[in-house]
């Protein structure tokens, strides 16, 4: 038989002004199973709390209902008080007499009646509450960072510098990401390589960081604190321990005309190559799809020239398994190629380039050593047109969103061009200028006011080539959409920033959500911007949406601090409000019929399939099993289960039905 204690709070006069608290306490006292019922002026005060503590002890209470304010306010207070009196805190419930009753109704019988209903409803519930115990899960204190752009670098360094282990996986031969390709960066115009390279080196040297380049995540299993990552280390064909990075091999390789990814096709690389001089690690890999030896079995020039004898043609891909406690996804973004834009020449005209290609042309370490030259004939363009929003904000091309970074980098490009080609003319065709960061608007205004870049508000209709010039046809919408035709030497398209290749399949491997454009989805756009819906997996940088470096780095540090916070505990404590699938004695084992409706309904992939076997190992049945590490306690599964085999602790079927019955009795 239950012995429930009921405590009615006056909240000064906040409740008692409209609710007859005394009457409520009296009525409840006569309810079956209620062993104690009192009212008091301020339940949350120290004397109020000790009323509860002593009643628990003296009356041997098996449950407590505090009828006061919103549980969102004081539930922790009263649960703690119960725990102090050695009553399991989950045997305490609150009835909301203030926000849901006294404050919203006038004084009167109806209000008091409602108060009585609200309390008795919870008395019926609490009679069926079970003691629950916080769930503890151990934590493996190693973080997996996927993607070695500036986001991954920053996150890895922050975690490592907090004393935790990091495994950084990068699929290219070097870390650095897009930032390593940039010339100078807005809004300060500092040299990208100069600020990035030291951080890349730091990554390589930090003893807490294990760096796997030319590697990809194959799969991730487990749950927060207890993941297992399988990582494929692609064969580099070079023994990294022996290689000194001398570069003899690359010089020896006869294959030299492969468009360099790093230089966006504007420069060439060999079959054995280091993507760029500042690469980390600064050791080559053989691109097997291009290497003569791998194609025809002959060549090996590189090996013959290698003083360290580090070339390994027989190296195999290697798969390693690592226990991981938390994951940070930082796989970045990509941009659309010019071939995406039929009206701008389908990638047909060499002098129509993307913003990223223009970065390479501006970069001192780029294919032209920082001189702006036309890819077609190497001449210096005297008239150059920049086209903003190319493919972005363009539902007709399937991309509705604003790419966010291009207004700024276009201003930067126009500016840097004017700094390099003093007598050149720069035009920018734009729709709106989105320059909302600190110092951003000032930056773009400088392009207009100090560097005399011509900003024309309108979209380009078409670009075609004539006599080595690019005819750019646009309109000036601020002059009644009057047509403008510019004979340009070069056109730079600020092409849309899109999700990186493979983002969708990676998201599926990690069980995190992604949006219609394959950017990873944050748990909440405002309040949980670096978390995913899967506990323990965080994200940062342009893999979530296009963003610039300052924003990327803040997100990376935020994600890192989440990981560090997670790792600061020996084990994770979680609220026991989770679903469980019942287990009964053999031969049934569980009423679960294995329909797995619950599994497909669970937004957190928290439900697994469990085999129930005889002692001889013969399969009896498959049943559902909730992974307590993943379950967030939403209860969606419960509503789906037709056989009532899965239930939510704290909001069990028994409890909520009792509430309904009591209310309407």
């Amino acid at each position: 038989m239950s012995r429930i204690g009921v405590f009615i709070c006056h909240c000064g006069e906040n409740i008692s002004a409209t609710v007859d608290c005394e009457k409520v306490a009296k009525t409840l006292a006569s309810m079956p199973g209620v062993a104690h019922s009192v009212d008091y002026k301020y339940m949350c005060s120290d004397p109020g709390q000790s009323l509860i503590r002593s009643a628990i002890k003296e009356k041997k209470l098996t449950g407590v209902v505090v009828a006061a304010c919103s549980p969102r306010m004081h539930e922790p207070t009263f649960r703690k008080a119960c725990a102090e009196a050695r009553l399991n805190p989950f045997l305490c419930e609150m009835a909301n007499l203030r926000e849901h009753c006294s404050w919203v109704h006038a004084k009167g019988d109806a209000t008091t009646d409602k108060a009585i209903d609200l309390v008795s409803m919870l008395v019926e519930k609490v009679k069926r509450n079970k003691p629950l115990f916080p769930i503890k899960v151990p934590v493996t204190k190693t973080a997996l960072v996927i993607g070695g752009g500036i986001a991954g670098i920053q996150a890895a360094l922050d975690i490592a510098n907090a004393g935790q282990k990091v495994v950084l996986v990068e699929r290219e031969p070097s870390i650095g990401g897009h930032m390593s390709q940039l010339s100078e960066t807005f809004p300060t115009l500092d040299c990208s390589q100069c600020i990035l390279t030291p951080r890349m080196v730091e990554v390589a040297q930090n003893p807490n960081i294990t760096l796997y380049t030319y590697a990809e995540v194959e799969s991730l299993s487990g749950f927060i604190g207890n993941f297992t990552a399988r990582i494929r280390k692609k064969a580099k064909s070079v023994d990294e321990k022996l290689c000194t990075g001398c570069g003899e091999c690359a010089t020896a390789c006869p294959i030299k005309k492969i468009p360099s990814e790093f230089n966006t096709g504007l420069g060439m690389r060999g079959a054995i190559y280091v993507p760029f001089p500042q690469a980390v690690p600064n050791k080559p890999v053989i691109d097997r799809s291009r290497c003569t030896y791998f194609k025809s079995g002959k060549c090996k020039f590189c090996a013959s020239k290698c003083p360290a004898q580090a070339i390994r043609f027989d190296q195999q891909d290697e798969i390693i398994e690592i226990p991981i406690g938390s994951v940070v996804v930082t796989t970045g973004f990509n941009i659309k190629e010019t071939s995406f834009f039929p009206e701008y020449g389908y990638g047909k005209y060499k002098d129509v380039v993307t913003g990223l290609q223009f970065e390479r042309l501006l970069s001192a370490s780029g294919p032209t050593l920082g001189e702006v030259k036309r890819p077609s004939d190497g001449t210096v363009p005297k008239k150059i047109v920049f086209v903003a929003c190319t493919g972005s904000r363009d539902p007709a091309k399937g991309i509705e969103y604003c790419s966010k970074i291009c207004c700024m980098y276009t201003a930067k490009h126009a500016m840097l061009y004017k700094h390099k080609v003093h007598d050149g003319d720069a035009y920018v065709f734009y729709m709106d200028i989105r320059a909302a960061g600190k110092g951003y608007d000032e930056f773009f205004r400088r392009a207009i006011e100090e560097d005399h870049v011509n900003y024309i508000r309108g979209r380009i209709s078409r670009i075609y080539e004539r006599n080595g010039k690019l005819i750019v046809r646009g309109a000036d919408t601020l002059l009644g959409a009057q047509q403008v035709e510019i004979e340009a030497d070069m056109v730079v398209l600020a092409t849309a920033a899109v999700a990186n290749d493979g983002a969708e399949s990676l998201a599926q491997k990690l069980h995190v959500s992604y949006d219609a454009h394959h950017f990873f989805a944050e748990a909440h756009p405002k309040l949980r911007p670096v978390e995913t819906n899967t506990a323990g997996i965080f994200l940062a940088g342009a893999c979530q949406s296009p963003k610039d470096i300052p924003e990327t780095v803040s997100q990376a540090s935020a994600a890192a601090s989440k990981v560090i916070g997670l790792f600061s505990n020996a084990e994770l404590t979680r609220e026991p409000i989770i679903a469980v699938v019942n287990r009964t004695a053999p031969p049934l084992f569980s009423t679960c019929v294995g329909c797995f409706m619950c599994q497909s309904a669970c937004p957190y992939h928290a439900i697994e399939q469990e085999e129930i076997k005889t002692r001889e190992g013969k399969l009896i049945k498959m049943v559902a099993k909730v992974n307590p590490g993943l379950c967030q306690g939403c209860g969606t599964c419960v509503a789906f289960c037709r056989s009532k085999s899965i239930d939510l602790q704290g909001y069990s079927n028994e409890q909520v039905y009792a509430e309904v019955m009591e209310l309407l009795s």
Partner: protein
Amino acid sequence: MSVSIDFGGDSLAGWIQHKSGISVQRCYQCGKCSAGCPASSDMDFAPSVLLRLLQLQNAESDQKVLSSYSIWLCLTCHTCSARCPMEVDLPKVMDVLRAESLRHKLVNKRAKDIVAFHKSFIDTIRNFGRLWEVGLVADYKLRTRHFWQDVVVAPVMLKKGKLSLIPLFHKKFVSRIFSGLRNREERA
């Protein structure tokens, strides 16, 4: 001065939506249509400006649109709609605007030749079932009194066998369509 025009209690923009399903509010005024439009430089309002006027949804701008020259200069070349990032079907909007311009007798003075030409064209079809170029040009000239226009080309065309002086009558093929349309109008 603005006359209030009735579009069944709606603005012209609403009327367009009703007639063609096109929302002019989708246009975000990027100007790409005007940039590529072959007729834009001869128009009184560039295509994107027409849409802007429609977006205002007031009687004055609606009237400006219906009495514009632009709607008659549009060549239905679809250059604009092919490239519009917001997929606004301008040529279809133009079709509705021309019909409304005629209906409300707001046809721009400069456009009367163009309207005359289209009327002549349709009359030729009505009368002959097919296009008879000499008949069309004669009808058009009578309508507009532009007797001398094209006079250089016609003789050459005749000489090269590109014009026939005598029409063939295929009227019967289309008479039902035209009488049906007339009945419809009368019923309306």
